[in-house]
């Protein structure tokens, strides 16, 4: 590949931009770009366009995105997808409910004991 025409030169633009050409190909293309105004202008446009694509600002996910995704997994799996977390990893509601039941029972028994006429305990 000693000299290039316009079509051959433009076929190398992508690989040149990606720095994937061999040193020999790079030298031939650069020589062509140095002497051919239309190819040079074309490559400049190509370069500017890809430069603009690379600097497009990153679009951020909306603030409620994580909560929305978690909710969606719960809804789709009807709450069965996530494993039940062990005690210590979550609030132990079942322990609280047992304690509350015990407390209610204890209060009830104490009230009954304070009224001996209504409850005949051995």
């Amino acid at each position, binding site marked *: 590949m000693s000299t290039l025409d316009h079509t051959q030169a433009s076929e190398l633009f992508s690989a040149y931009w990606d720095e994937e050409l061999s040193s020999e190909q790079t030298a031939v293309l650069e020589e062509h770009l140095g002497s051919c105004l239309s190819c040079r202008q074309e490559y400049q446009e190509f370069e500017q*366009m890809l430069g603009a694509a690379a600097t497009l*600002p990153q*679009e*951020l996910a909306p603030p409620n*995105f994580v909560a929305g*995704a978690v909710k969606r997994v719960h809804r789709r799996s009807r709450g069965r997808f996530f*494993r039940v*977390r062990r005690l210590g990893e979550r609030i132990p509601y079942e322990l609280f409910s047992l304690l509350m039941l015990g407390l209610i029972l204890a209060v009830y028994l104490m009230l009954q004991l304070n009224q001996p006429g209504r409850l005949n305990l051995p």
Partner: protein
Amino acid sequence: MTALRERRLLRRLQRHDENAFQEFVRLYQHQVFNLVLRMLGNRAEAEDVAQDVFVTVFKSIESFRGESKISTWLYRIAMNQCQNRIKYLSRRPTVRSDVLVESSTAPQAAGPEAQLRGRQLEGLVQEAIAELDEEHRMLIVLRDIEELAYQEICSITGLPEGTVKSRLHRARLALREHVKKRGG
């Protein structure tokens, strides 16, 4: 993310740990949303599809064997979901593109005229990307916006490297034509 941290997170995900899921979504939400938005061009659609991507990750986490990076696997799922949504949307009335180039993260060293020109070109490029066919758009997004390595793009698309390179070249030429048509 380090390889060790990625393996630990993966193990927790495979145990269906809700905290790990939240951590995972938090870690990748912006990358996935940005990718999907560039593919679909509409924020509401992008949010919906991006959330579905994470649901799919969770439904199929057991099948992930760690042969590729977790981000590559995630991108593959995202691209499949985008292709499905594009097909679905093509059978429905046009969904308006609402991706705006509001502010650039590009260095502000250039003069105001150059900045304005840069921003105009970014806008033109964004509009032109939306006009590309699905495969060209996917390759431009993966290589020229997300700046992924060719090897990673091959894993995501399932195409051989030579094919990716030649199709990407065609995609870039098509993009240039669309930009030119719009006055860039």
